[in-house]
């Protein structure tokens, strides 16, 4: 105890007046970070080991909640769907902004108009976008897409009600909202490329495709890699699009893991099981981040 006090005294002596002032002005923000971010993350883990009545912890049950959720047929559906969302978002969402940026970077007419135009969907709140697209995908012949199809003489489609199409169409909705903003990020990257590089390559006889492949692509590679991992992390937590557009249907064809959290927590009021699903999501996300860092390090070596 004595030695502990000595250490304590020593460390308070080591803190200068400026250290203390710095820590004091940080304190309110740190309290907020703890309350809104750090403590809830840790508490999810804690809560997932208990049985609770509403908000009161009743009994420690170890991993029982995890065993229960793994047996829940909804969980398996949600897990597979979440991977399906992620995969589709790589197929559709990842490449679209890159291609859009490469095209727009060539355009010299109406530059501002094109940039503002493709960015506009990002201005609309995500919830409003999801609700809007539910009407655009309306299966009757008065939905927007069916009106357009009718002009080409094609029969009305059921869109979201087709279990095979539900997830890809929700990903299309997410891409419609996000792609423009991501394109602007890539455009900023493309504008950083020294035009001399293209000139030099052209003198060496590289045609347009070769210049794209050997100069443009390597120059945005790092940016693309970072945006890819951020996209995977974001899509893995997809919640309100399926919640609002399909409510997870038809027949669990589009239920996501985060939606399962929502269902357990705010429809069944079973907070521990909701937390258990949250912890599973977090473990996946930590794994992705770890994998990403590992790949980066190996590349750099």
């Amino acid at each position: 105890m004595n030695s502990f006090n000595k250490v304590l005294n020593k460390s308070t002596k080591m803190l200068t007046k400026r250290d203390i002032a710095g820590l004091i002005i940080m304190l309110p923000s740190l309290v907020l970070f703890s309350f809104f971010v750090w403590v809830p993350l840790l508490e999810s883990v804690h809560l997932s080991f208990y049985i609770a009545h509403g908000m009161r912890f009743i009994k420690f049950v170890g991993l029982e909640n995890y065993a229960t959720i793994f047996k829940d047929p909804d969980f398996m559906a949600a897990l597979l769907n979440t991977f399906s969302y992620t995969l589709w978002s790589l197929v559709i969402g990842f490449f679209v902004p890159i291609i859009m940026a490469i095209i727009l970077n060539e355009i010299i007419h109406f530059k501002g108009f094109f940039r503002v135009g493709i960015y506009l969907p990002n201005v609309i709140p995500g919830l409003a976008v999801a609700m809007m697209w539910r009407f655009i995908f309306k299966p009757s012949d008065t939905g927007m897409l069916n009106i357009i199809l009718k002009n080409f003489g094609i029969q009305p489609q059921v869109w979201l009600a087709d279990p095979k199409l539900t997830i890809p169409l929700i990903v299309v909705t997410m891409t419609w909202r996000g792609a423009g903003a991501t394109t602007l990020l890539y455009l900023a990257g493309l504008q950083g490329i020294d035009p001399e590089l293209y000139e030099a390559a052209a003198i060496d006889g590289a045609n347009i495709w070769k210049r794209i492949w050997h100069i443009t692509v390597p120059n945005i590679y790092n940016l693309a890699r970072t945006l890819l991992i951020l996209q995977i992390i974001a899509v893995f937590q997809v919640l309100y699009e399926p919640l609002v557009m399909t409510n997870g249907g038809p027949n669990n064809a589009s239920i996501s893991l985060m939606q399962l959290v929502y269902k357990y927590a705010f429809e069944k009021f079973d907070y521990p099981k909701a937390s258990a699903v949250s912890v599973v999501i977090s473990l996946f996300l930590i794994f992705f981040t770890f994998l990403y860092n590992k790949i980066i390090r190996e590349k750099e070596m």
Partner: protein
Amino acid sequence: MTRLTKKNSGVIRQFDIKSLNVRIGYYFLLLISLILVLIAVIPIVWIFLSSFKTLSEFVNEPSFLPHKFSFNDFVNTWKVLKFWKYYVNSFYSVIGSAICAVIFNGLLAYSISKVRPKGSNLIYTLILWSLMLPPTTAIVPLFININKVGLQGTFIPLWLSMGANAFFVILYKQFFDSIPQSLIEAARLDGSSELGIFFRIILPLSTPINAVIVIYAINAAWSDFLLPYLVLNNTGKETVMVRLFQFRTSIATDVDIIRAIVFSIIPPIILFGIFQKYIMEGISKTGIKG
């Protein structure tokens, strides 16, 4: 009008333009860009046009344009849904959030960047980590804790939650790092407290970054619905987004919902119209999509 032969950016260079194929290719790309803009804009136009339709028009007639543009129905829905109330509530939520975003994230970033007390490196690492670990997965314990401290049914948790945003802290820190340390040392010699330096010197010097943070915070506070829904539902303080989310479980006609969607997207579009240049520059400079 920009002349194609004057093109001096991108992969296609001036000497490529001499080839007819490349010129045709360029106009083909121009056409694709136009189609992309149409894909981005048409759904928004359609939802605005549909909001002028009557219910039977919307349900029965497969056409783009409404029969007539009557603002009366529009105003009626506004009154019936009592949307003014939700606008006012959203306004409260947005203002408090913007203030909290500037003060709390700014103070933390200032201390990390310029005061640098012991432990600030560790704190910054923790904040960088919280970027990767998303807060939505911890919504359940957060909701429980808000109830435990008795803040449910108030705007306070929404305001304060914007004061704990890792992105904002990082943006502020990067900006503050570029402010010369000598300026702050001089103020310290004059006997200013750290808090005084932050409010009287740092914040006024940081107008560009303050503008970016305020715009992003306003947008985030206006668009957020999960936490507002959990905290404010059935308290009479519902924001516009919470009201929109309530349509999921309440009975309403399609046309009412579409009009409500239009009400909810008009303010962000106006905001974008005014600050368009700032927002678009902010994206390319900060790497954040908002």
